[in-house]
């Protein structure tokens, strides 16, 4: 049974912008899927429909056996605890320490009050430290997040997501604001989490080469529609240009070495 299934999902913002147009696909547990496409294609909307940061206008999204589109508060909160999310701009609470931000990953499972006052159990704190250690951040645990570099912040973002013990991690352009070296570290960590912890990953990317290198499967989105769904090997120049709606040799992401048509 797939862990995630989109059935004819559409999303229209403000009754005019059609961000998703009859999207259907399904993802098996443990897959590492990249979603590529030009900006404005609807990649972020697609991810946000899964954890209901955005409400789909029509269609069904089945996650872990349940349709999320109809869920109300309590069920929705439960689904959200099972889906981690990583953002382009990290979205940490900058004035809190690294460890406090990582512990935020447990908020969804806590009572309102203990979450409010930031009361965490010793086990939770220990696990947070272990996660930070595995991401090479144990030394920074008591630093305030605004003292960190972009790459470090994104690793805190990953730690926070893992802290949730999610079934699925959604990454919305996780490396779009990072330099190549930090980008590689982040992508390696994501690949590692996917492989060793068997957490399904869906990653929005706009770097085609990164998508080809890391993922088992690539979904190409253009204008709110899926125009490619398959292996990285099957993704040829022609399809890339179709996704980005561009003419030959207009893209800087053209794969090196391959002849242009």
């Amino acid at each position: 049974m797939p862990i995630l299934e989109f059935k004819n999902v559409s999303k229209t913002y403000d009754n005019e912008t059609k961000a998703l147009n009859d999207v259907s696909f399904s993802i098996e547990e443990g897959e590492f899927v990249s979603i590529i496409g030009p900006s404005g294609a609807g990649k972020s909307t697609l991810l946000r429909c899964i954890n209901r940061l955005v409400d789909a206008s029509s269609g069904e999204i089945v996650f872990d056996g349940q349709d999320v589109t109809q869920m109300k508060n309590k069920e929705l909160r439960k689904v959200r605890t099972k889906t981690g999310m990583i953002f382009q701009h990290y979205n940490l609470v900058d004035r809190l320490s690294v460890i406090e931000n990582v512990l935020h990953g447990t908020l969804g499972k806590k009572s309102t009050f203990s979450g409010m006052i930031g009361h965490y159990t010793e086990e939770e704190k220990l696990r947070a430290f272990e996660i930070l250690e595995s991401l090479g951040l144990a030394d920074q645990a008591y630093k305030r997040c605004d003292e960190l570099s972009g790459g470090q912040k994104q690793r805190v973002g990953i730690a926070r997501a893992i802290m949730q013990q999610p079934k699925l991690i959604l990454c919305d352009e996780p490396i779009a604001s990072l330099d190549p070296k930090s980008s590689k570290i982040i992508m390696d960590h994501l690949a590692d989490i996917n492989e060793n912890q068997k957490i399904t990953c869906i990653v929005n990317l706009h770097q085609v080469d990164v998508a080809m290198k890391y993922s088992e499967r690539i979904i190409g989105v253009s204008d709110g529609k899926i125009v490619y769904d398959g292996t990285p090997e099957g993704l040829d120049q022609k399809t890339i240009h179709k996704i980005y709606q561009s003419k030959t040799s207009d893209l800087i992401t053209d794969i090196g070495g391959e002849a242009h048509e």
Partner: protein
Amino acid sequence: MTDLAMPIYKKAENPTDISDKRIERGWNGKIRTAPHSKSNTAIKALMFSLVVITVYAFLTFDYKEIDFADAIMATLQNIKTVFLEPRLTRDTVLGMLYQLFVTFCLGILATIFGAIFAFFCSLFCARNISSPIIGGIIKSFIALIRAIPTVLWVLIFAVSAGLGSVAAVIGLTFHSFAYLTKMYSEAIEEVDEGTIEALRAMGANFWQIVFQAIVPSTITYLVAWTFMRFEINFTNAVAMGAAAGAGGIGFHLFMAGNFYFDLHEMGFLTYVVVIAVIVLESVSTKIKEKVK
């Protein structure tokens, strides 16, 4: 693509032509530097008419038999008594410190009550965490409260509570509440939407988001605004002591000046108030540095 081959900016054939068309000249033929706009003209006209009215007013005052030399001398004499010969004549130092403390407490009570109400209210008015409709309604209500001066609120509450410290505290609280709600909600609106979204995506609920993301991100501003309001409330409490009979140092100041005509004591009390305000100001600066 052919579009891209076109130059984006057309070069001017003859540069002086273009700049000649762009240069604006005023009525005297000189080149303008301020933009020619209706509001600029309006401001100039307003300034001019204010000057005319002022001159006219001074020329037509009914001065009666005031002897200017005498009047000025008497005023200077009073100022000298108040500011150069301050002395406690009717009260003891301890008594005066107690009165200062009373005023201080009036200010603190009003600030604390106002701050608590304002904090919860601002959560429902900040655009990024509340519905725009509810926020809009609360904000216009708050604007209405702020538009009416503190003294009026005190007098309004005096109708039911009677003139005195209770009416003063309620009135001060009311205005502080409106002021702080505006400041707090503006601070909250500065919190990065992404951060709030991230916590929501993890399953955190409203109150968890408030205390784990919004409070830590805005605490400096909340503390700074609250203390700022306390300074205002302290000076207001001095005034209310006199105007609403709320007691404290303000009342004594009023009595000394208007009842006993004891200008020496009035001067002394004025200095005490000024010192208290300066102390508060420096404490507030310290606090702001600490919570950064």
